[in-house]
């Protein structure tokens, strides 16, 4: 069971990497920072998706178990596509409420996923691990929101 659950922890790497953005010359601008953080989250969600499919294909989890996880990741990617559109333009305080709404959407979907116990986990400790991993996605999106707010001057 533990191996099954390691497809999602990749997102934890995001949180560790966010402070490691380097630039060839000059300081990293706030706009560069938030778009880079966003790209890292997207890559991690993609890898989590491919990992979940791989684990299901190998027979370690059933299709019924993988389906809600993939539905959640699909939802996160769908929301993030909208975030990408916002981030492609210079940061503006007027976009913050919309970003906050997107963060809430991902947070609600994550909580719904955790509450279903979709992976059929019997061990409470494992359940907690899934919750922590899904929360890491939500935390990462919150980091992006915070960086965006900072990029707009904290308004």
């Amino acid at each position, binding site marked *: 069971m533990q191996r099954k659950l390691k497809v999602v922890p990749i997102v934890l790497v995001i949180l560790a990497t966010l402070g490691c953005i380097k630039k060839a010359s000059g300081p990293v601008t706030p706009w560069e920072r938030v778009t880079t953080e966003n790209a890292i989250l997207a*890559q991690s969600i993609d890898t989590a*998706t491919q990992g979940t499919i791989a684990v299901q294909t190998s027979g370690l989890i059933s299709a019924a178990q993988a389906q809600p996880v993939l539905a959640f990741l699909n939802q996160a990617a769908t929301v993030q596509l909208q975030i990408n559109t916002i981030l492609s333009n210079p940061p503006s305080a007027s976009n913050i409420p919309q970003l906050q709404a997107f963060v809430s959407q991902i947070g609600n979907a994550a909580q719904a996923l955790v509450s279903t116990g979709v992976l059929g986990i019997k061990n409470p400790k494992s359940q907690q691990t899934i919750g922590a991993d899904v929360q890491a996605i939500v935390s990462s999106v919150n980091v992006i929101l915070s960086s965006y707010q900072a990029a707009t001057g904290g308004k």
Partner: protein
Amino acid sequence: MNPALIAEIAALIAQLGPLGLQLFLKLEGALNLGSDEKANIANAIAAANAADQDVLTSVAAWMQANGFKPVTTFVPVTPKA
């Protein structure tokens, strides 16, 4: 990179194999920016869009292959035992 991060990535690769290595390479590329701000931002947005589209394409193909309806929004479903 700090040692803790290297250790975490190493563990990730050990757990996930090629997928972990692939993610590491993508992160390595994403974290090292060039000197042109506009190019960096354009690259980051393009990478995010490509990754998100890959998720949608992959999930849609998987849902179809496994007899599930296409996902439009997340609807939690408790799987059958």
